[in-house]
């Protein structure tokens, strides 16, 4: 029995390792290619796996062609703006939906649910026209715009508030807090983990958003990483070391943040993704 169990654990490890290799090969290939010369990257006989010399030419080229400081900054503004707006508005609205009883609540909540059921592409043309009419194309505001509020986040926070015990709220109330104070000092701090989950979820999908940045910010100086990278491909078609170097530079910050905060990332996705 024990031998059998040991054998099955070994088998599980073998399967998981093969899977992990498949998952990681594209990243490894990205790294290896970015340090090669163009001729090395397209050499077939013999096929080059490891660069003979670890060249940084591709990185230098990419850094001279693209203003990465600017791109990181634009991406940071996009992410920070959307996360801040999402957490702030959803925390407030979630509390109202989850904890208060008032006229019009159900109609308001049905709007939230309705938004969540509709594919997001349906909003894009009118949102684009709005930003365009405001004269705000090619600004940070344009990037943040669709994320000013979040139906999904509101739903998530509502669930979090509904799960809290009522005793605390009552105690605060007995101590003379009004509804605003009860929310701010007692209830909101208790949903911190849901706020973090929403923040991570929002940050990840803001970072990965491609169509919206492509549409609203067409100037190099105002693009975030995702769309700048997409535009790059059209510029140097076959120069794979440079394309891979740029991809690597675009991915590294998020990957580092993910590895440091992986526990929060995975728990955040598990709670927010699972409660959609």
């Amino acid at each position: 029995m024990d031998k059998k169990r040991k054998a099955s654990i070994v088998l599980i490890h073998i399967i998981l390792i093969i899977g992990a290799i498949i998952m990681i090969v594209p990243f490894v290939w990205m790294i290896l290619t970015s340090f090669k010369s163009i001729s090395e990257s397209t050499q077939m006989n013999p096929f080059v796996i490891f660069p003979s010399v670890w060249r940084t030419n591709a990185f230098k080229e990419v850094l001279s062609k693209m203003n990465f400081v600017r791109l990181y900054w634009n991406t940071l503004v996009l992410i920070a703006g959307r996360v801040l707006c999402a957490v702030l508005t959803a925390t407030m609205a979630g509390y109202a939906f989850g904890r208060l009883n008032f006229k019009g609540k159900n109609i308001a909540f049905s709007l939230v649910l309705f938004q969540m059921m509709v594919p997001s592409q349906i909003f894009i043309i009118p949102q684009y026209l709005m930003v365009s009419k405001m004269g705000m194309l090619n600004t940070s505001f344009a990037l943040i715009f669709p994320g000013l509020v979040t139906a999904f986040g509101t739903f998530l926070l509502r669930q979090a508030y509904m799960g809290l015990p009522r005793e605390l709220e009552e105690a605060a109330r007995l101590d003379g807090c009004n509804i605003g104070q009860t929310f701010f000092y007692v209830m909101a701090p208790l949903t911190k983990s849901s706020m973090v989950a929403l923040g991570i979820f929002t940050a990840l999908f803001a970072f990965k958003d491609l169509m919206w940045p492509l549409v609203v910010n067409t100037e190099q100086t105002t693009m975030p990483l995702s769309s700048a990278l997409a535009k790059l491909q059209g510029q140097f078609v076959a120069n794979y070391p440079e394309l891979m170097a740029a991809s690597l530079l675009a991915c590294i910050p998020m990957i580092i943040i993910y590895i440091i905060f992986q526990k929060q990332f995975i728990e955040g996705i598990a709670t927010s993704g699972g409660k959609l």
Partner: protein
Amino acid sequence: MKRAGLAWPAFSNGHVKEVPMGEKTVQYKGTNQKRSEFIWGWLFLLPTMIGLIILNIIPIFQTIYQSFFKTGAFGKGNVFIGFDNYTKMFQDASVWQALLNTFKYAIVEVPFSIIIAIVLAVLLNRKMRGRTIYRTIYFLPMVAAPAAVAMVWRWLYNSEFGLLNHLLNSIGLKSVNWISNPNIAYISIAVVGIWSVIGYNMVLFLAGLQEIPRDYYEAAEIDGASGVKQFFHITLPLISPTMFFVSVTRIIGALQVFDTIYMMLDKTNPAFAKTQSLVYLFYKYSFLESNKGYGSAIVMLLLLVIMLITVIQMICQKKWVNYN
């Protein structure tokens, strides 16, 4: 009055469960209770509701409205054309082809991404060495920029210099035109989709698996049920709500596939017509050709398809989803 009745028993240990719960909300003291809840409630809702109405609710109607117009040059001079965009769309072979392509993509991406993720989650759902490392690696593609993911896969798929064809050649197989053969390009694109989303699905399944009480498995073990049997008789039924949730959201996501198509296929690609998705067509007409009226009609078709499929899934769930 109710407040006292609720608050006191809660403090006397052990009888918490007997507290009548009633409504979810706390009853506050004072005659202005109702009014103050109304005011605070709407104060808290205000930013979200204004935002939702401006950003989402009005745009839905604008998109519907726009789909009845022909967009003039440079967005000026919209002309009302009734259902012309829709009749044009129903006669447009490329729209039907794109819809078919989208379905084909979803049919490959969704089942595989779910099955592989469940297997991985079940394998990882135990105390073992390296659990965190595996989880970290499988989730890694989720944190990569989609444009970077698309570029590296395009490079792996490269028919002349790509790693995949090199590996095929080295074991004596012929090269494959992964993304330029019209018959397999959609599969290659779906593989990228699967690779990207496995970790996400796996994390959701792991969370679902942790809800299953351990004693179920212990009891099954005593009865001598094998691991496979346990999987089909305990794990699958108990994780079916998570499966239902993941499949609904994955199908919706797959039907909206855009990033990989946009990034990996050039317009000169011979497989382009047989691979482009409905959302890509929407993007093309709305923003590359500035025909926002026609783009709106296409996105309405997408809405209809997603709604239909979601409703069908809701109806079918009674047959296989186990909520006990």
